[in-house]
């Protein structure tokens, strides 16, 4: 790892690579996940799923299943008249269990609760469902045909957490949402262009494969609902549960133990409403633990089909860009309206484009629902945009790096109106990636090098609270609604609290993700936690400190000696008093505590959106096996522009993990549908990267203190994923002269492209 840049000095242990605080629990097997939660009287659920991609449900006969020994409840939509079945934070279009029809193969139709999971599974076979199959759609362009079957007869209701203010009317019943980004005179830009580069790019449907499949335990008591679940956004899940069961927010408790992987796939609500409904009917606490095969059918990433044209002058300046993005969002909206929005925003890249017109639509198909997946919208958009930068460079006879230099936004420059100016030196970041790749040295014969960059409007919305309590012994408890999903929030947030209060890290306890006991945080995603929750904790610490200083004045210096605030307490007349002693003095005994509060909203430092830009660069050197079409990655370089690394080792590990996840999607991963069914919905056929697939890696962390977070921190963890596919595609072009516009770059696709290249060369004589 190489570190570049300087920022304001931070109090220890902020900025130090302290060991993960969940380390011992995770290496000894003691760490508890939702899948490990057991309650007295716990019953177990299994789900009957539709074998049809699109069908009307004529009847469901539950008689035999109900009579099966050990079965406690057999539940379909008609058993849930008292429940608001349809939920969705962006568009309410998703019934927690199929109502009248199914919209993808794998949709839940009946839930069975039994004394044990094996009995519940056995009873599934005893349910008799009569279907009327309907014509189905698995392709976005077919879905937009004038005579296409309609997947949602009634449009979903728009909901509060839209996050996309400027969406436009849907033009077809199968369009879930359309976002538009538009500025400047695009027609004039293209008319004036010396070069127009056009193309169609396809990014696959992908599966995040969080290794812990979705698991939820739900329990009702005295009209209140408690849910232990493997999710990223407990407060969002709480909101949906309150809606479905018509409860006040205060009657729903969502608890998140350690989460076995998220990557966006555990954003928002998944199986929590269904599990809670089953527990309600069973009158028992219920555990629903999905298999990997079921998890694949629960959430996937949005496939993208992007038609894009970019206009340049002969010096390589971008004049304009037009694009149409079609996302395959599957049977339900989930978070895809936001993914569509983000894809539109991220098609500009970190470039100065005087005129742009992007329409980005999420389109319903009869496939498993798509939602957030690490980088949402960015990997798809950046693949198209960054591929075109290299195409243009070649046609203009420019070095691809030089073309980027000429177009990259300068610090503070706005990519489009009413947006935060870019809070990074993107040009310098690109140079770092190039330097690590020995850009100026000619690549070995048969090798190609490429550097790609992405800038994502990240951080989601700044709606975050934190509570910091200083106890009578001076130790500290922090309550933060951010979820530990592996990213290291339990370590990083504790470091910030320890640094701000100047107490030893081991005297800080961090309590996370329990909606009954921890105050609100919007979400754990969009790389926002270190930056936004970090700020909230800093403010809570400042609030606690201010109160303690006031208490010192009241209880220890009523007659006026000056109270001087110090790092770890106060000094009065030359005598030091630590935080604990101030608490005790004010309460007049041996106990008490101070409660500090930190709030974050769209105001002050976090008024402009996005809260920060997440900039990542990836450099790749690749070669191609001309016989097999196999791409060899000779090396991979990442540059993460994180402003200030609170824990450099953890940032490095996020960056490497992100790059390798991007590598999987670029090289191998794709969910394939045939005849309306997913044909590779398991880990035998859906191949994720393995240890042997990893090229030599090098990471650069850039810390110029230019983010809104504590000491200039910005988010990380997505930036190094987003440019991986175009970096590989561009390197392959320079190695072998083939332009790959469809990911993943499987050996077969590469081999076919090599054949086409040779045929073209032969024809050209």
């Amino acid at each position, binding site marked *: 790892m190489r570190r570049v840049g300087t920022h304001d000095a931070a109090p220890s242990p902020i900025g130090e690579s302290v*060991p993960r605080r969940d380390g011992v629990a995770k290496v000894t*097997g*003691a760490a508890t996940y939702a899948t490990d939660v057991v309650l007295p009287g716990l019953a177990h659920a299994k789900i009957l799923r539709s074998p049809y991609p699109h069908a009307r449900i004529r009847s469901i006969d539950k008689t035999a299943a109900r009579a099966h020994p050990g079965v406690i409840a057999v539940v379909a939509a008609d058993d849930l008249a008292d429940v608001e079945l349809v939920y969705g934070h962006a568009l309410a279009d998703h019934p927690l269990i199929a109502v009248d029809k199914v919209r993808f193969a794998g949709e839940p139709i009946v839930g069975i609760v039994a004394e044990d999971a094996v009995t519940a599974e056995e009873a599934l076979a005893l349910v008799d469902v009569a279907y009327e199959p309907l014509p189905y759609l698995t392709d976005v362009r077919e879905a937009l045909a004038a005579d296409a079957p309609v997947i949602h007869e009634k449009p979903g209701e728009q909901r509060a957490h839209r996050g996309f203010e400027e969406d436009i009317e849907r033009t077809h019943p199968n369009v879930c949402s359309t976002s538009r980004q538009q500025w400047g005179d695009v027609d004039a830009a293209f008319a004036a262009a010396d070069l127009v580069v056009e193309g169609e790019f396809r990014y696959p449907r992908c599966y995040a494969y969080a290794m812990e499949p979705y698991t939820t335990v739900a329990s009702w008591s005295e009209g209140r609902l408690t849910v232990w679940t493997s999710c990223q956004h407990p407060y969002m899940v709480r909101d949906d549960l309150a809606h479905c069961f018509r409860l006040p927010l205060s009657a729903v408790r969502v608890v998140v133990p350690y989460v076995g992987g998220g990557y966006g796939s555990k954003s928002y609500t998944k199986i929590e409403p269904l599990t809670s409904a089953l527990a309600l009917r069973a009158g028992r606490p219920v555990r629903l633990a999905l298999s990997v095969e079921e998890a694949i059918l629960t959430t996937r990433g949005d496939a993208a089909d992007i038609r894009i044209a970019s206009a340049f002058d002969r010096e390589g300046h971008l004049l304009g860009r037009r694009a149409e993005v079609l996302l395959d969002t599957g049977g339900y909206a989930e978070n895809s309206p936001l993914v569509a929005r983000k894809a539109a925003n991220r098609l500009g890249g970190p470039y100065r484009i005087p005129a742009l017109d992007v329409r980005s639509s999420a389109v319903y198909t009869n496939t498993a629902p798509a939602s957030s997946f690490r980088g949402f919208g960015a990997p798809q958009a950046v693949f198209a945009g960054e591929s075109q930068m290299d195409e243009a460079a070649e046609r203009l006879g420019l070095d691809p790096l030089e073309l980027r230099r000429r177009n990259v936004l300068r610090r503070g420059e706005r990519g489009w109106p009413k947006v935060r100016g870019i809070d990074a030196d993107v040009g310098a970041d690109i140079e770092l990636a190039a330097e690590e790749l020995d850009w100026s040295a000619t690549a070995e014969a048969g090798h190609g090098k490429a550097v790609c960059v992405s800038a994502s409007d990240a951080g989601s919305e700044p709606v975050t609270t934190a509570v910091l309590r200083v106890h009578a012994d001076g130790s500290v408890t922090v309550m933060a609604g951010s979820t530990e999903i592996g990213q290291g929030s339990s370590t990083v947030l504790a470091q910030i609290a320890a640094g701000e209060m100047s107490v030893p890290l081991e005297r800080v306890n961090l309590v996370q993700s329990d909606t009954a006991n921890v105050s609100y945080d919007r979400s754990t995603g969009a790389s926002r936690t270190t930056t936004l929750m970090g700020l909230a904790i800093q403010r809570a610490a400042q609030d606690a400190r201010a109160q303690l200083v006031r208490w010192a004045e009241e209880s220890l210096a009523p007659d006026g000696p000056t109270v001087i605030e110090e790092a770890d307490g106060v000094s009065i007349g030359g005598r030091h008093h630590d935080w604990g002693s101030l608490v005790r003095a004010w309460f007049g005994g041996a106990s008490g505590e101070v409660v500090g509060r930190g709030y974050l909203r769209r105001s002050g430092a976090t008024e402009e959106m996005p809260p920060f830009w997440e900039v990542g660069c990836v450099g790749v050197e690749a070669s191609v096996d001309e016989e097999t079409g196999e791409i060899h990655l000779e090396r991979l370089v990442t540059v993460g522009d994180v402003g200030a690394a609170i824990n450099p080792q953890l940032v490095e590990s996020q960056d490497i993990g992100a790059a390798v996840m991007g590598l999987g999607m670029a090289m191998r991963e794709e969910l394939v549908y045939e005849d309306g069914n997913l044909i590779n919905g398991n880990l035998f056929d859906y191949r994720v990267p393995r240890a042997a697939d990893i090229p030599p890696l090098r990471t650069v962390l850039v810390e110029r203190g230019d983010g809104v977070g504590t000491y200039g921190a910005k988010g990380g963890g997505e930036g190094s994923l987003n440019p991986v596919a175009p970096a590989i595609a561009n390197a392959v072009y320079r190695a072998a002269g083939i332009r790959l516009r469809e990911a993943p770059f499987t050996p077969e696709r590469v081999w076919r492209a090599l054949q086409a290249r040779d045929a073209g060369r032969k024809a050209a004589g």
Partner: protein
Amino acid sequence: MHDTIELVLDVNGRSRPLRIEPRETLAEVLRDRLGLTGTKISCDAQVCGACTVLVDDLAVSACTYLAADADGRRVRTVEGLARDGELSPLQQAFIDRAAFQCGFCTSGMLMAGTALLEETPKPTRDQVVHGLEGNLCRCTGYAPIVDAVLQAAGAGEERS
């Protein structure tokens, strides 16, 4: 009720007499009957390695290994790696190298790594990569895990 069988497992050095259904896997018995939930189930199909435990020193996938087949054998799980509260060198190396994030693959990685180091105390980097081929991790990109195994082996090889 289903038929049951009796068996005795030696789990982390303790003899555990059990009465189970013949269909129960070793992972189910460890997790549900013995409360040893450090062993995780992910793919449930012997692809991902999350459930890796050692049976008579051999790394196996507990999700597809019938508990009955472990009758009378020596089973080691992640809970048995630390001795008297002291982490094994491999556990410590995982912490030192940040060789995990979410931690869901970690128990299996540690057990596979333990088996590897018992068989090959001074492995090369390629041998470590090969030895971990049956274990998936979705968070770390593997490089820190390979580094950790090498550190535990005392090889001291550094990634740049």
